[in-house]
């Protein structure tokens, strides 16, 4: 992959680093572009599936970006969407098979949502917007960056939903260990219901925009 990088530009040039960093905050796929909300609702009840889902999306996005970027000059514009879909679908099947082989329990929890990575708007969006017009290495960085931007939101949401909804973190009964149930504390059932994921994403957006004024639109 790195063979295509022009010799003048170092691998981690300022431009490439920006590709990694910008999607984490200022162009975050979930909180700013509001893409990929569907899976953010579905897989964030517990931390473990959220992390596995994040890794899957990062892997699919990075490699799909690279492959499409390699093919970008040979794809006829009329059929580019179907080509992108074939590439994504192939990668998703790979990820699905790997999960089934090595993390069967989690793959059962994620069930249909691994398959639904195919329809995740973030992936199609990046392929269209970035990989079709850039070289493989920057595309790879862009894929990792956007995947990570998606991942950290998912993980934060899942952390709070699991902690407050089930009283556990990664399956560990944290709340029970602290002994907070003895003084009358109860788990919050609303946290397990999907609407709460939207509300937490909303709160993250609120915090992010009040820290980062340039995101506020009129």
């Amino acid at each position, binding site marked *: 992959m790195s063979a295509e990088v022009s010799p003048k530009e170092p691998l981690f040039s300022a431009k490439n680093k920006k590709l990694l960093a910008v999607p984490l905050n200022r162009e975050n796929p979930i909180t700013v572009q509001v893409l990929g909300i569907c899976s953010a609702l579905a897989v964030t009840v517990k931390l473990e599936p959220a992390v596995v889902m994040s890794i899957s999306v990062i892997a699919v996005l990075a490699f799909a970006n690279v492959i499409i970027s390699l093919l970008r000059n040979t794809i006829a514009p009329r059929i580019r969407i179907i080509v992108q879909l074939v590439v994504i679908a192939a990668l998703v099947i790979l990820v699905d098979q790997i999960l089934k082989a090595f993390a069967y329990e989690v793959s059962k929890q994620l069930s249909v949502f691994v398959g639904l990575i195919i329809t995740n708007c973030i992936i199609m969006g990046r392929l269209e917007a970035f990989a079709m017009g850039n070289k493989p290495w920057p595309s790879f960085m862009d894929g990792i960056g956007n995947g990570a931007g998606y991942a950290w939101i998912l993980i934060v949401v899942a952390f709070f939903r699991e902690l407050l909804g089930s009283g556990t973190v990664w399956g560990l009964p944290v709340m029970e260990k602290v002994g907070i149930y003895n003084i*009358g504390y*109860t788990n*919050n*059932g*609303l946290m397990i219901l999907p609407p709460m994921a939207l509300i937490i994403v909303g709160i993250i957006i*609120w915090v992010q925009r009040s820290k980062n004024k340039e995101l506020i639109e009129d």
Partner: protein
Amino acid sequence: MKALRNYIDKIKPQFEKGGKLEKFHSTFDAFETFLYVPKTVTFRGSHIRDTLDMKRTMIVVVIALIPALLFGMWNVGFQHFISLGETAGFWDQFWYGFLKVLPLIIVSYVVGLGIEFIFAQIRGHEVNEGYLVTGFLIPLIVPPDIPLWMLALSVVFAVIIGKEVFGGTGMNILNPALTARAFLFFAYPAEMSGDKVWIAEKADAFSGATPLGHLLVGDVDKLPSFSDMFYGFIPGSVGETSTLAILIGAIFLIATGIGSWRIMISTVAGGLVMGWIFNLFAINDYMAMPAYYHLVIGGFAFGAVFMATDPVTASQTGMGKYIYGFLIGVLAVIIRVANPAYPEGMMLAILLMNVFAPLIDHYIIQSNIKRRLKRVKIKAA
């Protein structure tokens, strides 16, 4: 009183622009206008103003709620002693209920107003009065034994997520008091539903089922008599049981012109119509129950009088109010009868119609414009 006025005038300059306590201007202003009619006058346009500002409006609603509150306090004690099988005097019953309900009111006001003041300070606007009513409504629509921290949490949720994120009082889409109740209902179902929670410190052997609870399992013959349910001698949330007390509040609200009679009437009509439609089919005992029973069971009356009429979240147009109220009544009865997961449909019906209120208004206004345009064209021709 004169001394208080003088004291306020004395400390006022410190809170004005440039004063050393300028930061707390909104807090000061809130207290001053709460105690005295503000001195602000219009400086252009019409010069005659109604003295009825938002604070007075809110106070009228609070006064209208007092019969329901007092009855609720007594009923909490009454139900408690019945469940224990003890007899107690009127004042013992009232005192017991008073001690149960007072902490709810205090927690609701302290937490809610605390958040209001903090947001007012941060955003630099005046403290909004909307919470005066919300804070009074919330204790009336929860079970008497609700843990206080849960109540506090629901208030935090309702004020921040239900109101402040939309821009504060007057901007909210959903009724904040019902948002608090919906939060409790979905977050802590064990404390908000079932037969165990509606009587304070109930004896275990005594069935504490509300009328809705009986209906849910199909025990229509176990319902209390209509008059008991009308007067409110039944278990339930603090302020919702007595239709009579709510009716007194409703008359007061209509007489002062604060509450919309259009919404109240049409909500009741909607409930009755849907009840009759169910009567026509009458597949089970619940559907066969006389339609007017729906009006005195659960939170229907309380919702119709105090929740549906919230001026911020209801429809604003005259015709829209009829449609909005009617659909609340219809939906509440449908949810009650047809969906066993939610025994109390009133809360969900009002919240749902809150969301649709702007849409209703939009189409009413559009049709008005169209009708008038037609008139203009005919004249022109």
